[in-house]
């Protein structure tokens, strides 16, 4: 019905967070002037961009599905179920259940991706040192 609105709303929030985090990172890099150390690790704003792509991409394709099924229309109120009170309640219930579950699952998968990436980043210097000893 309109479940894609929940991940789309999360995408707006995470995009704003990404912009703020990126600005902070640039500022702190200038202050510490240790870009070589930072460059080895992936910035957190880069990792946030993964979440943005998943949320925006998913929301766009789901919105297309809703247009396909005639649930989203190009005229007010844009959602066909929004004009009737009973349908509206059903639509809001779906956003609250399906939409929230979508947000949670995508964010959980992103969290796992970040955790794995962090582990790989931590392991990388040790691997490099091993290679140096061997060579």
């Amino acid at each position: 019905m309109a479940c894609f609105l929940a991940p789309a709303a999360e995408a707006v929030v995470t995009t704003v967070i990404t912009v703020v985090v990126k600005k902070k990172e640039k500022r702190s890099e200038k202050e510490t002037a240790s870009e070589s150390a930072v460059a080895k690790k992936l910035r957190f704003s880069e990792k946030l961009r993964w979440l943005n792509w998943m949320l925006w991409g998913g929301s766009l394709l789901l919105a297309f599905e809703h247009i396909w099924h005639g649930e989203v229309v190009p005229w007010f109120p844009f959602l066909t179920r929004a004009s009737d009170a009973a349908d509206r309640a059903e639509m809001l219930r779906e956003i609250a259940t399906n939409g929230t579950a979508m947000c949670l699952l995508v964010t959980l998968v992103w969290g796992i991706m970040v955790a794995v990436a962090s582990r790989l980043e931590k392991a990388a210097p040790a691997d490099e040192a091993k290679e140096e000893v061997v060579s």
Partner: protein
Amino acid sequence: MTLLITVFAAVTVTLIWYASEKARKLMTGPLCLAFWGSSLMWLVDAVMEYIENGAEFFSPSGKDMLNDAFLGISVVALALTVWVIALLVKDPGGVVRKRLKKHD
């Protein structure tokens, strides 16, 4: 069917992204994440439908399957079109800029 087609698209693009350095420069990363994002969202839809309808979920009518397959292919086409437009606008290889300079 839409979920299956999107998952296949996500796996294919991920393999291309992993195997080819050239593909990574052509913004296949965001495309791959968009396919995975939508696959996860449709997975939630599928689970919710299974909870509501039970085993009936696994035996859709031929007409429904055909419509879902048509939708799945259209979804992949839309994602690829958006990706190609983004690629031409960002022009990471400088191909479009070079062509435009030649004509100047």
